[in-house]
Every structure is written in C-alpha cells, then in structure tokens.
C-alpha cells in the first residue's frame, strides 16, 4: 500500500507518542563505533529498559583488528558504566549464516517480552536483515521499533577485502530458472565488487536509490558510486533510473520501491549499499514482497572486516541529545510495511 502513514521520528518523540508505557527489550550491538552505545544508554536514561542484548560480531583477521579490539573495550566499559550488569553480550562470527543465526534468534526470543527496539546502527546487514525477518514474523513481539543513530561523520576507510556479491542469509533466490532480474541498488559510499552481479545474471533493468540531500562530502562519494556503475560497469542508466530519496525516510523509500516494482512479477534483486535507513526500507520491502508471494532477493558484497573508524562520534541535536531516528515497524502485532 502506498501513502500509508508509518510513524517515525526522533526516538524520544516516538516513545512518548506510543500508547504503551511498557519497558523495552533492546537488541543492539557491541562494536567499535561510538554510536553503538547510544540507544541502550538513551533507553536506560529514560528508565524504559527491560533488557539489553548486544551482539558482539567478530570480524575476520584484518589490519583493523587491534584498533577494533581497543575500541570495543572502550564501548563495553561505557555500556557497563551506564547499564551496570543489565546487558548481555552474545558473541557471533561476522560471516555467520543460518546455522549460526538460528540459535542466536532462539536465544534472543526466549528473553524478549513483547516490546522490542532493534538498533541497527552498527549491526551488519547479514544480522539485521535476518533479525528483522524473525522479529517481524514472531507473534511474541507486539511492538517493534527499529533505530538508527546518526554519526558525526564517516571514516575514509570503511571495510577490508570485500567478498563477491552474495545473497544475505534467508534472502537468497528461491527460483532455479534463468535470471534477468530488476536490480535496485541503494547508492552508498563503496561500490565494492558490484560487477559480480552482472556475472551472476544480467539485470534487465537497473535503478538506483540515491540519498538526497547528502551531507558533504558524502554526496561526492555517492556520485562516484553512480559513475562507477554507469561508466565502468556499463549499466545504461536513464535520468529517471536515479531516484532521489531522503536518507532518513524509510517509509518513502519503501513506497518508492513499491512503486518501482508495481506489476513486476519477475525477480527483483535489492542491493543495500546505501544509508542504514534505506537498507531498512529494502529489508521491509523484501519481507512485504515475499509475503505477497512475489520473488525477491537481497544481496551484498560482505567485507570480512570493518574499520574501527567506520563512523566517528554521534551527531547531536542543539539540545545535546543524540540524533536517533526511530521507525515503528510493528504495533499491536500489526505490521506497518506491507504491500
């Protein structure tokens, strides 16, 4: 459905606006980025924290590993100061797939009480796409909010030795026939090794979700990404194939994706390289399209390691509070993002 109101806004505003005054289970991450501590600390400071489950995702060995380990320790100490012993850390390998992810979910679900905040700020896609699927489908979860904390800025070096295009766990293809998909790419900073998509199955059409406006110098890196796709990967793009979307507007991005795929009964492939909120829209759109019985897959070039300075600091409002975007995905068991 296009044009539906789906509540979203600053975290504190959204929590106040909701009729429920229950406490929240927070699922987040314990990583190197400063912003991973923001949401748990915010919820704790509001005295609304029921439980806090943090995924500590281990990267593969890389030149970043020492810096990452130091930064993670700093975050852990901060978390311990703010939350005491009321958080639990679940360790997982970055390259985890369903055999590893399913037990993690079973563990999480046994603790969750019904109102969940999933903080995807620092969660790798292969984790948050999977968790979103499970949380969305779980009848135990009545209310689901997804949060994204905005950093002060992004680092110049984001990741290391990205892998080939591959489908995210549980979002792979389910049709063995010949492929000529519609490919929708969320434009980001690093194009990684997108060429593999061409080798995998020549996309019939390519469309780009372009974050606009983008904070300088991010816009330049976004256009570099587009240039790479157009000139070096030889995808022929028409002006109308580059669709601008506000990087925080998950709901509008979801509607744009829906609009682009109206009448599209063939396979749609989504490539979430862009801002987290657009990746969230892609995850929700994939789940909605799948629920309608239409073929959809989501893929990515998973790097085996991320930089300790993937992002730096936390963006703050004029009143000093951290800038956290919150998206209401489910309330009273009813999903907001459906076709």
């Amino acid at each position: 459905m296009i044009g539906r109101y789906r509540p979203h806004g600053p975290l504190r505003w959204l929590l106040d606006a909701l009729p429920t005054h229950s406490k929240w289970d927070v699922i987040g991450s314990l990583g190197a980025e400063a912003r991973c501590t923001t949401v748990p600390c915010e919820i704790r400071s509001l005295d609304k924290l029921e439980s806090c489950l943090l995924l500590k995702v281990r990267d593969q060995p890389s030149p970043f590993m020492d810096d990452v380990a130091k930064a993670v320790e700093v975050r852990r100490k901060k978390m311990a100061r703010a939350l005491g012993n009321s958080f639990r850390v679940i360790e997982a390998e970055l390259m985890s797939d369903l055999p590893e992810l399913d037990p993690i979910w079973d563990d999480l679900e046994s603790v969750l009480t019904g109102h969940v905040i999933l903080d995807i700020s620092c969660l790798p896609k292969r984790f948050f796409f999977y968790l979103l699927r499970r949380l969305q489908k779980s009848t135990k979860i009545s209310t689901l909010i997804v949060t994204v904390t905005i950093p002060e800025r992004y680092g110049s070096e984001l990741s290391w030795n990205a892998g080939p295009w591959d489908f995210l766990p549980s979002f792979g293809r389910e049709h063995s026939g010949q492929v000529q998909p519609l490919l929708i790419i969320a434009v980001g900073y690093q194009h990684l090794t997108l060429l593999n998509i061409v080798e995998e199955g020549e996309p019939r059409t390519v469309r780009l979700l372009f974050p606009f406006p983008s904070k300088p110098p991010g816009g330049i890196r976004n256009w570099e990404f587009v240039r790479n796709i157009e000139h070096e990967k030889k995808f022929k793009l028409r002006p109308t194939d580059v669709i601008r979307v506000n990087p925080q507007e998950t709901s509008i991005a979801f509607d744009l994706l829906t609009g682009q795929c109206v009448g599209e009964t063939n396979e749609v492939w989504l490539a979430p390289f862009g801002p987290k909120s657009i990746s969230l829209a892609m995850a929700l759109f994939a789940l909605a399209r799948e629920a309608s019985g239409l073929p959809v897959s989501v893929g990515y070039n998973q790097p085996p390691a991320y930089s300790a300075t993937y992002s730096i600091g936390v963006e703050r409002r004029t009143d000093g509070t951290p800038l956290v975007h919150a998206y209401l995905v489910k309330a009273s068991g009813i999903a907001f993002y459906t076709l």
Partner: protein
Amino acid sequence: MHQVKNPFTTLYVTERMEDDKFPSLFSPVLVPHIMPLFHAGNVVVNGTQGTGKSMLLALLRTDIRRAFEASRSDPYPVADDNCQFVSASINLATNQALRFANHWKATDSSDALSKLQDGFVDYANTWLLRDLLGSVRDLHIGPSSLWDRCAIGDSGVSLEDAVQCLLKDEVIRPLLSNSRNLSEASDCLTRRLDTYLRFLNGKLSSLPADLTLPQPHPLGHPIAATVHAWRSSGFLRGTTRVIVIIDQFEQLLDFESQLQGRPFGLLRDIIDDAIHLREPTICYRIGTRPYAWRHRKSERLRDYLDLDLDQFLTRKEHSKNALFPAFAEDVFQRRLKLFDYPEPARAEDPLRSAFGRSPSPGARAKLLASQKNWVRLVRIPKTFPTEVQEQLHLLAGHNPLSAKLGVAWYYQQLNERHGSGLRPSVSLSPKELPWEEPTKKWWKKERRRLAILQLAAGFGQRVPMFGKRDVIDLSGSNILVFASICQHIWTCWIRSLDDAPASPDYGFPMDSGVQDEGIRNASREWHKKISEEPWVGDSLAQFIDILGNYLHDALVKDKAMSYPGGNGISISDRDIKAFNIVDKVLLDGADRGYLLQRRHTPKNRSRGPSRKWYLHPVLSPHYEITVTHTKEPRYLRASTIYDWLIKAKAVFPQDARQKRSDEQQQLPGFESEQ
C-alpha cells in the same frame, strides 16, 4: 547522421552478449589448440581472468551450437565429425549450489556433513539432468536438426519415448516422478531445485521426504544412468559423447576458504573425486582459474588433460610465432564488422589501420618535448667531463634518445673505473659514440625503453603510448585487457569527434593523443579493478602499489641503466619458503592476472631455482614503468617484500587464513607451478 558506436562497449562475450551475436564475435583462432574439448576424456580449461575460458566452453553449449546453426555467415568452427556430443552445464558462480557450504557448522558430525554433501551433489545432479534434457530437446527439434547432422542419435525415437525409457531406470525414476513428457520432467526437476533453495533460505526446517533419495548418488551418476538408458533404447548412439561442463570452479575454493573454523574443501573434493573416478560415459570439462586447480587428487594426463590458456597465449620469450596477436586481430575485426564499420583500408591488418604504427624508439623520445627542449630533456650531468658534456649536448639537439643512452654509457664507464680503483674524475675521451657501434646493438636495444622512460620522468612527462604494437604489448596476451584498451580508446575517439566521420575509412588511424588518453584510462581502470577482487582486493592493491612504485623509482634512478630488466623482481625459491605470506600475496596477484609469474634461471647460480614476477603490462602506464621484459629482473629478498607488506598493513600476524594457505602450499607439486 550516422551515429558512431563503440564496438567494445560489452567486453564479455559470454556473460553479457546475446546468443545470436556469439557466432559473429567468436574468434576461431584458438580452436585448433583446444580440440581436446571435443574429444573423449576429461579436460580442465585453465586460465586467468580474461583468457577466454568461458567463451571456449560456451562452444559446447547447445544454445550456442544452435546460434551457429542459425548464422548464415559464421559456421560452427568445428567439423561435424567432432560434434557428436550432447552437453549439460553448471556454472558454480550462478547456480546457487555453493550455498550448501553455508550450512556447514564447525560442530557438525560427519553424518551431518555427509548429508549436506549429499544435498549439494543431488542439487548439482538435478541441475545437470535438467540441462541435459533441455539440451537434447533443443538439438532434436527442427527439420534439419543438429541431432541428425551430427549423428547424435536416432530421430525415430520421440522425445516422449526418451523420457519414458528414463522412468524405467531406478536411478532416474525418483527424480522424474511420474512425468509423462520432457516438459513435465523438466518442471519436476525445477521443483526439486526450488525446494532445495527454499531449504537453504531457511524456509523449510528440514528437507521434505520426497527429496530424500533411497540412496545418495555420486556426482554425475544420474547423467551416466540417463546415457545408459538412452543408448540401450537407441535414442543416443553409442559413440555420442556426453559432456558435462562445470564452469567457474574457482568459486568453490574462494567460497569455502572464507568459512572459518568449518570443514574445508568438502564441495571441491566432490568434483575432484568425480574427475578421478573417470566415469566412462561422461566427459567432464572444468573451467577454472589456475590457483583453484592445485593439489588435486586427480592426476593430469591419467584423469584429465590440462588446457592451459595462459601458457599458449603467452608469448614465449624470443619467439615470433605468438598466437595472441592473431587472436586479438581477429577479435578486433569481428567487433568492427558486427558494428557495421566499413572494411578497414588494410583488411589484412585492421589493427594497424585503426591505430597505426607505434613510434620507433627515437621518434617516441622526440615526442616528449619540442625540438628546442631536446637538450633539456636529456639532462646531461654537470659532473661529466666538459668534452663529454659538449658531445652529448650536440647529440641531444638532433637525437635525444641516443644522447640519453650516451649518458648511461658514460655513467657505466665511470662506475667501472671507480670499481677498478681509478678516480671517477679521470677524464674520458669522447670517442665516436661507442654505444652506437654495431657491437653494442644489444646493449642499446635493451635500454631504449628505459631511456625513454627516464627522459619522460626527468622532464615531468609520461611516455606516449599508441599504435598497434603498444596496444598488443600492453594487452599482455589477455583478450579481456585487449578489448578493454580498445574500448577506452574508442570512447576517447568518439568524444573527440565533432561530427560523424565523413570519410568512409572513418579517418583512421586514430589520433595518437586520443589513443594515448584511452590507454591511460584503461590502465587506470585495471588498477582500480585490483581492489575489487573479492576477498583479497584491498590487500592486493596495497601490495601492488608498493611494488609498482618501487619499480618506477628503481628504474628512474638507475642512471647508468645497469638494470634494464628492472621492471620485474626475482626471488629464489629457497628464500621464499620461509615467507609463506609473501608467496601467498604474489600468488594472489598472479592468479588474478595482475602479476605475471615465470620461472627464472638467475645468472648467479648460487641463488638456486627462482621465480620472477612482473606487473601485468596494462598497469605499466599507471605506474610509469617499462612494458617489455628484458634482461635480468631485480633480485629481491623475500624479507624485503615481507617488510613492505607489514608497512602497508597488508598482512597482520594473526591472519588465520594464512595458516590454511600454508597447509595448501606445503602440498607436493607446488614447486613446479609456473
């Protein structure tokens, strides 16, 4: 106005080109060298990226055979008597079978692992059987079908009967259920594959019972059973070969090596076992990059024949009978023809028609500066005796290349005297250009490119590259690089046109400046591609940057031109053994085509067997190093490279993947790798 099109916009012939264009773009130049593909027995087609493996394997595919059949101008490049075969193919990069490996767990029991392996094999078997049925259908239909012409089978047996006879076979029946015809059989197999994909996506908690076979089959078994049934029924002749193509084999190695802490090589070994078993009814064709086909259980010659594309495309040193230029020429001509370019003025040499001749060394040197600046270009050292300076000054005014070689010559004389204990300030008598004497022909020839590079570097210029010879040399025997260079030149050329070319020959040859710009763009793109290599891109790019910059500096600073072959490095096998990580990084580069690796017999025999590495020639303009490989490369210690890697953070002590790589590299056979 006739719009000028770039004939090289699409580089990959197989992945992105429509089937009907394949016959006109396919170059038959390599066909005489790959005839084992059409004969009985297993064949491994081995080659780095861009050597044309997939293009050659595509010749065996039925859709491509039919495309040739439909083509009026381009006949199938192999005679009918070699075409008595049907094929089934699986591309491991695209068919999703690798997703089974994601389901391994470190804690899996051998029983659980075995079930997953069985699932992978059944998926691959099902895929291949579906492809074989489709292949047979496509060969069979049509009045003058390939089926009859190539004497593949008896056209008196209908396709329905062919399916029915399969249902009597115990191996095939569970796979085809109660299919009544080919279409139903194909649908049945598709449903089976899709069920697996749903299972791999976590949509099914376990595999449904109807997917469980009474007994798991080894890879290829259902195909073999199909062949037996069809031969017994007369549908297929006894002499018809059944070819199973497994392309992108290296994906198995790449994929499994990333799954840390889990069993390694389980899928890869399945295919290796199939080759090793030498099932007589099936001829396997494996397309792979070199690194993935090391340390196999199967044995070359006994179990399979190795077609090493790199080996026969790479120009042998001192050989004039190179295959690659003819291959490139043919590819070039076909592209232009497909895009309706008029017959080039010199049809027998279309590359020269489009790009012209590359400049002679002397002419290339003169292009670096206007004539009034030729003396400045040479940068005659003030430390040379006055009479020598005067001599070189005079020479530089009309022949800057010779003057630069003269500078090197005098540097060498000074060095020799210095080495023999004579004072370097000793006056040299300027003879009549000793480096130009006939006896110094080779001395001069080996240093001309280096001299031009030094001239350019000293004057803040880059060596201009254009013309047929440069395009071929920079391609480094890689057809993808060649097409990429042509593509960039064409892009620049089209951009330079104010209007469509008025003359029928398009105003060829193209302007040298335009070609130079295109070549530099291609070089930049290939440099950028390094960091896009899955799993190794960033570390490899950092290493190659260090190596490229080191070689550039060393070449430019070598004023005496004592190391004209210094655009490559040599390390002794004995030395490198202590540094597996160095070997791994060098292999990563060579396996992906960014480095060229050769065996090296060093002048200094005490170093023992060695290997030498060069950057791929297409990277030469980017790093500004010489292109041709001549004389001795620079001798380096593995520890020096190790230090570079540490400095660049391209390696790190806890690199767990390295341990795995070490295990592989200790296996026998490694020493003989080229």
